[in-house]
């Protein structure tokens, strides 16, 4: 066991993947000498050289578009998008080429590309640095989308994403980058595209992913005082969703609250709610409740505490479900 931050865990995971396979290359803005603005790629340039750690020109379409070409050539690029709100110049290449080439060629061309995106708010940043665009990717056929919430998952999931022969959009909870936890480097990780019960419970199911997962765990602890025994599930994979554990849980608890930072309309949380009501209709004691951001652009940072689902709003959602 070793104590790692999420940032260092991804760094170690990248290093392990690069040592394992010489076709793995890291590319993005400032990922070389600087080590990335969040230091996730710190030290990789020194150890792997300029042909495997590329400080690229400042152009996101270029990062994704050349990664697609490198993948056609047989490389396994890991692209860093510096901030969530900067991915959109690369969105065309992601949707039009990265997501579709395997299908277009019926498997003759594979796209083992990982696109790492720090996502979410809570860091007091200026505009475009705090967004949660995961639904825009989860909605695109041909992509797989995951989000890690803790150092152990960060360490293993990045390696699994790199090993995947499909394109993976890899969301990192940026406001948790510096939070430490134990990572068992010798354990066998769960499959990449699986959700995980983070806390066992019996009265209500809380589902989340990324940064708010920790808030959900804190809410579960707080709810104990009210006699509620909450089960908390970390989705981890947003496309494809792995709702088996969620459905199993809801059949026991009868209540589901989905927590996410993203705006609620047409969101991952909405899809979870829709699918669970399809699968667990007769088990539900209350409608599925969503506790999320709002359908507004991410606000100026002095307003973000109002936007982000915090402990009290999650507990409010729990109360509304329990009171039904």
């Amino acid at each position, binding site marked *: 066991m070793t104590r790692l931050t999420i940032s260092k865990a991804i760094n170690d995971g990248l290093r392990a993947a690069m040592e394992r396979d010489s076709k793995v*290359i890291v590319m993005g803005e400032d990922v070389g000498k600087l080590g990335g603005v969040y230091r996730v790629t710190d030290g990789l340039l020194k150890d792997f050289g300029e*042909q495997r750690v590329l400080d*690229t*020109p400042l*152009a996101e*379409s*270029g990062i*994704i*578009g*050349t*990664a*697609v*070409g*490198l*993948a*056609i*050539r*047989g*490389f396994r690029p890991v692209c860093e998008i510096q901030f969530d709100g900067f991915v959109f*110049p690369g969105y*065309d*290449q992601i949707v*039009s*080429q990265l997501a579709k*080439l*395997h*299908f*277009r*060629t*019926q*498997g*003759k*061309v*594979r*796209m*083992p590309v990982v696109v790492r995106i720090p996502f979410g708010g809570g860091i007091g940043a200026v505009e475009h640095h705090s967004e949660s665009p995961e639904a825009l990717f989860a909605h695109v*056929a*041909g992509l*797989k989308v995951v989000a890690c919430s803790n150092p152990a998952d960060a360490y293993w999931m990045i390696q699994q994403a790199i090993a*995947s*022969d*499909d394109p993976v959009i890899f969301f990192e909870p940026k406001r948790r980058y510096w939070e430490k936890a134990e990572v068992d480097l010798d354990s066998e990780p769960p499959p990449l595209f699986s959700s995980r019960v983070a806390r066992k419970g019996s009265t209500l199911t809380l589902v989340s992913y990324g940064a708010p997962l920790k808030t959900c765990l804190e809410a579960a602890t707080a709810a104990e005082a009210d006699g509620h025994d909450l089960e908390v599930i970390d989705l981890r994979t947003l*496309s*494809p*969703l*792995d709702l088996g554990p969620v459905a199993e849980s809801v059949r026991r608890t009868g209540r589901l609250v989905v927590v996410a930072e993203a705006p609620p309309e047409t969101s991952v949380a909405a899809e979870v709610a829709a699918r669970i009501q399809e699968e667990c209709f007769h088990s539900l004691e209350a409608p599925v409740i969503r506790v999320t951001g709002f359908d507004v652009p991410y606000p100026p940072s002095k307003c973000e505490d109002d936007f982000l689902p915090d402990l009290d709003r999650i507990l409010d959602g729990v109360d509304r479900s329990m009171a039904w």
Partner: protein
Amino acid sequence: MSVPHAWTPPTSVDAPTPTPEQVVAGLKGTDEGGPDLVQLLTPEGERVSDPRFDGYAADVDVESLKALYRDMVLVRRFDREGNALQRQGQVGIWVPLLGQEAAQIGAGRAMQPQDMAFPSYREHGVAWTRDIDPVDLIGIFRGTDHGSWDPKEKRFHYYTIVIGNQCLNATGYAMGQKFESKVGEGADAEATICFFGDGATSQGDVHEGFVWSSVYDAPVVFYCQNNQWAISEPNERQTRVPLYKRAQGYGFPGIRVDGNDVLACLAVTRWALEECRTGNGPVLIEAFTYRMDAHTTSDDPSRYRLADELELWKLKDPIERVRVNLVRQHGVEQEFFDSVQAESDELAVRFRDHCVNLPQPAPDRMFSQVYAEGSPNIDAQREAYLAYHSSFDTEGSLAGPSIEGA
């Protein structure tokens, strides 16, 4: 055998005569290529010298020239058949290359087997030079597939329909060639060639491709077929300067070649690919040509350009000048031209037969190969859809057999 719905054009409301501005724009856009135009074969079929590039065409003897002629005639013939198939409702759309045969055959025949090509969606002639059977293109336009060849084996990527995307993909591929030490003096040195049009040069991806390839010294030839028109928009809507001059701003050579001169296109592209293979890439080639047909079979050029313009360009026809040269300079007999014509007609028949006999894809075709490692969501949807499908009486069903296990 079901037939794809023919596209029905909207009823024309008295197509307006082009404005004087449009006429001027069109004439300016389709003027001579200027003094920098590289030409080895004039529109009248006369072999002219260009000391910079003669060496790259020195091996083209009469047999080679006949082969280039045959390439162009065959490509033009199946291209015309593609148009006809659309008019008869057998394909939803066809993207004609008429007039661009020399630009494509010259560039395509300049490639070495190890070189890689990234096409746009009009590159039927380049596909031909990569040994892709023309019948393997027709499914794209009939709607049975998005292509079927193996891009690794043919060294010809799939058609890219989003304008300009392939310039970045080609650049990345070329960066990979360089990272794998395939650039240099060795016999196994490789280059990449990327095809796009004049309209694409306004796209950010083309600009980014120029930037990336230059800062990484990527071995990529950017081959812009300037056919003067981006659907209805003339060059003036894309650029103030001749397109080949843009390369200078990125720090690599740009050259304008007569895109209707197969010999010049061959020589200049050979030079450019060699530059790239030996580490002097990237290079921009502007093949100055003309789209003699519509943008696609859904387009109506009479709404935006004058018929006179086409007549002007017919005098510069890429095939005719080679025929004249073969006859006058090499004394090639009519028998040769007749045999190529007969061969092209046979190809057209085979092209047509293949098209109309393409099987209807199975109902679960759409679920096939979305992911390399599968997806439980798609598996569940496929299963549910097939169950729904089989709930109907299968007799008389439009569907073919399931592709499961195929």
